[in-house]
């Protein structure tokens, strides 16, 4: 027992491991990156031609980040993921500091400050916060696994308090940017971490009910929300204003039909769909490759997500399971929200599509996350039937 613990400790403390990484997951990530780059190129072509020095402006930048991102993914995957534990708190502190800093030095994009400009590099502190939540929560839960399973109310409240406090702090800072879609993602990821940590179903039900209640009040109580809901139901009522984006996205998706207009043949990217290379690459996928192409992309995402959970399930320990399920769920929610916005399933909100949307720092952080998953995959116990 003691020996094993020493072995275990050694393993946990060693910086790198040599086990094979999960090849299907890695290949899916690279495949989606490749498809994403091609589609982002097509989507950005007209916008880049009209607004930048070169039609390839976005694709060259994204390409460089992608190569770097894949490299980073492999580097991260070489690490022993237990080695990340001590970094979880500093990461969180860094994220919080950046979230404060961004309020003062953030660059203004559509009336919200979300970016910090490092000269060569723009970074969204909220992206770091997502990773920080996953890492810190995984570390905390792995340290005291049964705490969250507490069913009695007072101890439960006491046990859950630190998590809630961290989430509230992040959400509060992000609300000041404001960045509500980011808050939704952080809270969702936090909730999933707590769920995976064994939070009793009764508390899940309670928090869920409270959350739904709060959402309902928010939606119905403010004019702003009411207007957004109205535009969501019929975007044509404000065609030249807030309805423009959803309408143009619907036009793009609908124009594709079953088999699409053909790669590069989108009409909507010609200054109809605003910044199609950001949040609406998937609309261009639908327009150019049709429903069939869109289903293939979604299927690849599905495989990636399911494979992610498979890795989570087979992870060597709880920390691994928690890390991987957090990262996988974050990826899934982001994909869902982006496609839902593109098809007007939900009101427009600024959520980018993993691997498809333009954005260097975002992509790098995503690849770091993928690297974490692969790192966990390298330590899966040998398959024993």
């Amino acid at each position: 027992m003691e020996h094993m613990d020493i072995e275990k400790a050694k393993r946990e403390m060693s910086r790198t491991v040599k086990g094979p990484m999960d090849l299907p997951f890695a290949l899916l990530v690279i495949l989606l990156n490749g498809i994403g780059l091609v589609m982002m190129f097509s989507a950005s072509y007209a916008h880049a031609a009209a607004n930048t020095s070169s039609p390839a402006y976005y694709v060259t930048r994204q390409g460089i980040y992608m190569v770097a991102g894949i490299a980073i993914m492999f580097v991260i995957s070489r690490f022993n993921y237990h080695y990340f534990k001590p970094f979880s708190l500093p990461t969180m502190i860094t994220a919080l500091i950046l979230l404060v800093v961004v309020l003062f030095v953030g660059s203004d994009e559509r009336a919200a400050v979300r970016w910090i400009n490092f000269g060569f590099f723009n970074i969204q502190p909220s992206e770091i916060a997502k990773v920080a939540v996953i890492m810190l929560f995984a570390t905390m839960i792995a340290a005291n696994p049964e705490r969250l399973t507490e069913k009695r109310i007072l101890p439960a409240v006491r046990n859950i308090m630190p998590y809630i406090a961290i989430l509230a702090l992040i959400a509060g800072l992000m609300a000041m940017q404001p960045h509500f879609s980011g808050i939704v993602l952080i809270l969702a990821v936090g909730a999933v971490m707590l769920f995976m940590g064994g939070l009793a179903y009764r508390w899940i039900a309670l928090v869920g009910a409270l959350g739904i209640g709060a959402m309902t009040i928010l939606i119905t109580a403010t004019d702003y929300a009411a207007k957004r809901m109205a535009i969501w139901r019929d975007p044509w009522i404000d065609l030249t204003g807030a309805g423009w984006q959803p309408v143009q996205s619907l036009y793009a998706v609908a124009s594709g039909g079953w088999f699409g207009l053909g790669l590069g043949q989108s009409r909507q990217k010609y200054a109809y769909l605003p910044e199609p290379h950001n949040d609406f690459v998937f609309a261009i996928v639908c327009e150019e490759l049709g429903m069939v192409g869109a289903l293939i992309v979604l299927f690849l995402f599905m495989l990636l997500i399911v494979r992610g959970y498979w890795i989570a399930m087979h992870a060597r320990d709880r920390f691994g399971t928690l890390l991987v399920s957090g990262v996988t769920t974050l990826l899934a929610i982001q994909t869902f929200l982006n496609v839902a916005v593109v098809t007007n399933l939900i009101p427009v909100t600024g959520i980018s599509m993993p691997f498809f949307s333009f954005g260097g720092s975002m992509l790098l952080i995503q690849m770091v996350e993928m690297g974490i998953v692969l790192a966990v995959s390298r330590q899966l116990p040998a398959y024993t039937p």
Partner: protein
Amino acid sequence: MEKVGKPRGPHKDKYNRMILVRVLILTGIFGFAMFVPLVMKLYEVAIVRHDELEQRAINQATSSYPITAGRGTIYDRNRNALAISASVETVCISPKDITAEKETLIADGLSLLLDVNREMIVERMGRKNRQNEIIKTQVEREKADEVREFILENSLTKMVFLEPASKRYYPNGSFAANVIGFVGAENSGLMGIEAVYDKSLSGAPGRTVRARTGQGQPMPNQYEMYYDVLDGYDLVLTIDETIQHFAEKHLETAVIENEVSNRGCVIIMDVRTGGILAMATKGDFDLNAPREIADEELRLQLEALGADVYPQALGEAQQAQWRNKAVNDTYEPGSVFKIFTAAMALEEKSVNIETVRYNCTGVIKVGSHDIRCHKAGGHGSQTFLEALRHSCNPAYVTIGTGIGPEKFYSYMRAFGFMETTGIDLQGEAKGIIAPYDTYSRQASAQAVYSFGQTFKVTPIQMITAVSAVANGGTLMKPYVLSQVTDSGGRVIEKVEPTPVRQVVSAETSQIMRQYLEECVNQGTGSNAYVKGYNVAGKTGTSQKRDIPNADELGLYVVSFAGFAPSYDPQVAILVMLDEPGLNRTQRMGGYMAAPVAGRVLADVLPYLGVLPQYKPGEAMSVDVTVPFVKRSAVKDAEAAATKAGLTVRIVGEGDTVSDQLPAAGVRVPSTTEMILYTEGTKPEETVAVPDVIGKTPEQANALLTNAGVFMRPIGAQPSQDAILTAAWQEFVGQEVPYGTVISVEFRSLNVSD
């Protein structure tokens, strides 16, 4: 490194199982369930709503630019243009492309160049997502060039641009205005031929469809489609510009001379085809400014009105001046209608024209009504022809009654008075005639109908019926359009004359031609007489009985309907003057309308190439051409003059002619005495033309001859009944060269109808 409290043993297994279950739950939600709504929604948008939304996307991304079709030209029958379309341009701006720093420049520049309101430009410039806002239409070439220069100088391409369009011009202004009509906005026909044949004239506009990006630039890989423009067809009318000109000239003179207050009209018809050669209404309006009130006096009256009633009054005045009196209005034909009563009697053989005599005592009793003749004391005993020449009402009551009410009424129908003629002009009115039941119950109605009173017809109905009497008895459908051609002159459609029905026999027509010529030669129509051209016709005068107090107010409508030449009728003419002035004895068709017909026909018949045929009595006053006799022997000169039909007077003692009067080549009446000078030349001084208005032909001739000028009498010819006086003359009071030929129009005064 395991922390205290980490579950172990079964507890640990339970915890691991819990984790496993929860990962499976997440897999279920995020790995599978999550994709269900996405795929469903995707299917709904991409497949179910594909057609609808894609169409909207395409509509949004394509812009369609109309290409205006050129409107066809309207020609007279000799291909003189009456209405043409000139190329103009439309100045537009694209607010979407206008940059902020150019706004002031554009607003200032365009408002100055095009003389448009600056506010309007600024307002249109504010419609920022538009690409095609019209600033001014119908900009002519010169102005358009200035705008082009302005665009180039200030690099405003795409912000300001011009589009081709067309503008309608009427080269002759008010010429045939009520027939040709005019166009409104968008060049669509509003009145007259322009409206009736709008479809043929306007053609089909073309379209260019271009795919555009959201910023209005052409899409790089997209299509352009053109739909060909089809220019409008040209129309060739039956109207003859020259004939129309004669009709308008003399009608206008008559309207002024006779102080006509409710306008007048003249129609000239080809009796064989029903084609309208001329259709004039005066006062009219300028086709190039149709909304302006042409009547100066009326316009001033209107402008003096308050703003509350002005628009309505203006609108009414416009409608009134646009009315084509020949087609849109009705009038009481009066004695002109005796043409048809006479023709019916002949056709029905209800009288023996050789033996019948009508004794007019000045009044005839019909039931309890006394119907008076216009000649107090009566015409005495008259033959059938004399009754027509005298336009004797009691005689016609007798003739009409003899035909019988049923027959009379059905002939009215046969002559086309109960229906519209179907002429291809707008808003043709129908005659106002009592229904048969009412008509047949009242003997007095039947009596007055026979001389054309108490019912109304349209001028076009009247001339159509007169043409039928003249052309051998066939009622033709009148028409204005003769051909439709494409812009290359290829005939698309040719209108053939349409006979409606045979109304009277050729024999009846034959007799009527002679009788109606007699009405002009020595009857109430004598002022329509044109030497050598055998004008036939009948006058009419009618009180406007449908207007209260018409008699006290002296409201009459006077008219003349006829045709020429009587032995082979070519053209029919109708002159109608509504509410003439002057004194009451002059408000007669014979006095006011007949001379108009005479003047018009005197111009029209030679133009049509009708050769004059002089009757024995007329030969005396036929115009001849003065021969060139200068420098020839007196004897030879005398022979030449005699051969030409002139008498000579020799002045001087020489052997050769040194000068002559009138000059060679001048047309003079054959009664003229030619003067041959054998010593020296004719007097060089000018003479003052004496005023001979109101004089008899003899008096006038003496006065003019004494003054040293020659008289050419025109108008009514002398006859036993006619008391001729000069009604009009050339050069009155002016200085003219010695020996000038002065035309003097004589008019008969005893034309009491």
